[in-house]
């Protein structure tokens, strides 16, 4: 029983090891290097797309591990996803309305 409680508490704490954090940090630095070097290349209209895709990957990584979202309940993750998708819809609708009006 005590063992079970201990296990439960550990699970609830969802402690992330330093190694995992450092690995993620290295990944984020690599992505930063990538986005900076890509900016040096003339990709035309794709410049903004690649920059935004890399920025989105980076923020997903930060939210998932640094902000412990990976370890939250599923319903909570859905909740955050809904907020973000709503936001993306706002941006794209506003933009398309402007672009085609």
């Amino acid at each position, binding site marked *: 029983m005590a063992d079970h409680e201990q296990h439960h508490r550990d699970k609830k704490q969802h402690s992330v090891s330093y190694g995992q*954090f450092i690995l993620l940090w290295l990944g984020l630095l690599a992505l930063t290097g990538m986005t900076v070097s890509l900016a040096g290349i003339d990709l035309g209209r794709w410049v903004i797309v690649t*920059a935004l895709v890399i920025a989105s990957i980076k923020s997903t990584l930060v939210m998932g591990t640094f902000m412990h979202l990976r370890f939250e309940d599923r319903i909570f993750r859905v909740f955050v996803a809904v907020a973000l998708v709503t936001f993306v819809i706002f941006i794209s609708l506003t933009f398309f309305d402007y672009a085609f009006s």
Partner: protein
Amino acid sequence: MGMWLFLFTELILFGGLFIVYAVYRFKHPEEFRLAAAELDTLVGTVNTIILLTSSLTVAMSITALQEGKKHLSLLLIGTTILFAVAFMVNKYFEWGHKFSLGIYPGSPDLTNKPQGEILYFGLYFVMTGLHALHVIIGVVVLLFVMVFIARGSVNKDSYVKLEAGGLYWHLVDIIWIFLFPLFYLIH
């Protein structure tokens, strides 16, 4: 949970500005490109690395506290604050340099530029300024959390305040993750 709700309101705040940016950039693509070329990519990159690393240290401080290592946790939060200060010092010199070139809101040099560049620098000052304000608030929040940890009211078994402070700090990092390519890398 409450902290996340607050972060959503921040998303709306910066999101609105990102929409303004998107529309004006669409309207003045060439002028935005020219204006962006005047920003120093190196300073932006250094500040990106600083913020990413500060996110790492604040995330590790939570693990340290969970393991009951109070002093290590305090040390890691202190490191985060030092990185934040380094970020602001960089920002200070960057803005100072722009000011010395005569580029500041409402300056004669700036108002004589084409409209697109005026808009670009207007957004640049508002968005990076608002972000810098968040950095300062984040430092104050983290200082409070450090006091709580030192006094023991935030500890191994009750560390919601540290988590909330950390979440806020990561949000500041994420906003910069988007500001950096949009302002420094698009030329």
